[in-house]
């Protein structure tokens, strides 16, 4: 039996986070879009994005200090794979206007057609990628 308690609690926390942002400043917590502000010209309108990113890092430090075991994972050390994946995620999320947070966490509850299609697509291609890799090994 998998631990289902942590994923559910974490999921609800993510829900609370996006509800706070939408109810507070009327913004969607789409992390790829927010991150893209870093590679754009600094502007006053983007200030909330810098603060959100700072919050992500502070929340990361907080979690890491409190429960370092959550960060106990293996990540590929195949340099080519890591670079290719990073490029695909960066380019793909901009072209598709969102990632797991914007399209998934915020778009699905809004029943936005674009987000439903995007989420189904990236999960489908993700499954395909892992499955093909499993066959090659």
């Amino acid at each position, binding site marked *: 039996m998998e631990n289902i308690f942590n994923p559910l609690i974490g999921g609800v926390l993510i829900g609370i*986070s996006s509800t706070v942002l939408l109810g507070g400043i009327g913004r969607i917590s789409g*992390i790829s879009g927010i991150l893209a502000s870093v590679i754009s010209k600094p502007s006053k309108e983007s200030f909330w994005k810098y603060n959100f990113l700072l919050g992500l890092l502070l929340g990361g430090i907080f979690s890491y200090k409190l429960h370092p075991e959550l960060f106990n994972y293996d990540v590929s050390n195949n340099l080519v794979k890591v670079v290719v994946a990073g490029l695909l*995620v960066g380019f793909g*999320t901009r072209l598709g206007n969102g990632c797991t947070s914007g399209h998934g966490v915020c778009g699905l509850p809004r029943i936005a057609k674009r987000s439903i299609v995007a989420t189904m*697509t990236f999960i489908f291609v993700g*499954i395909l990628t892992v499955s093909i890799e499993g066959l090659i090994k």
Partner: protein
Amino acid sequence: MRGQLISLLSGFLFACGLAISGMINPDKVRGFLDLFGEWDYSLALVMLGAVSFNFITFRFLKRRKPVCTDSYFLPSSKDVDRDLVLGASLFGAGWGLVGICPGPAIVNLVTLNSSIIIFFIAMLVGMLAHKFYKK
């Protein structure tokens, strides 16, 4: 000022949620995507928790204004076009390859793991590449 604090708090909560849920763990993400192998369904509950929570709260929010602004900034585009599907496909391929999406990439930076840092930089380069591609 209050809006900035709200953003900071929202980011903080988001990171804690990603950490507790297991979304920051690339092994778990790839386990979730390994539908035809040893499928680890637990991360489906993260999406279920977040989406059902928002499904209720977003409906409630719709009837009132945001605390710090006069209106919501929601995506205006409604069309399912080639860019959307192609972009989501490229993202899905990258996500499947190493099991990291943008949020966890940022949160995981705190471990100073070299693969994560390289992934993060490559992701920014990918975003920059898109900027020039669109020009």
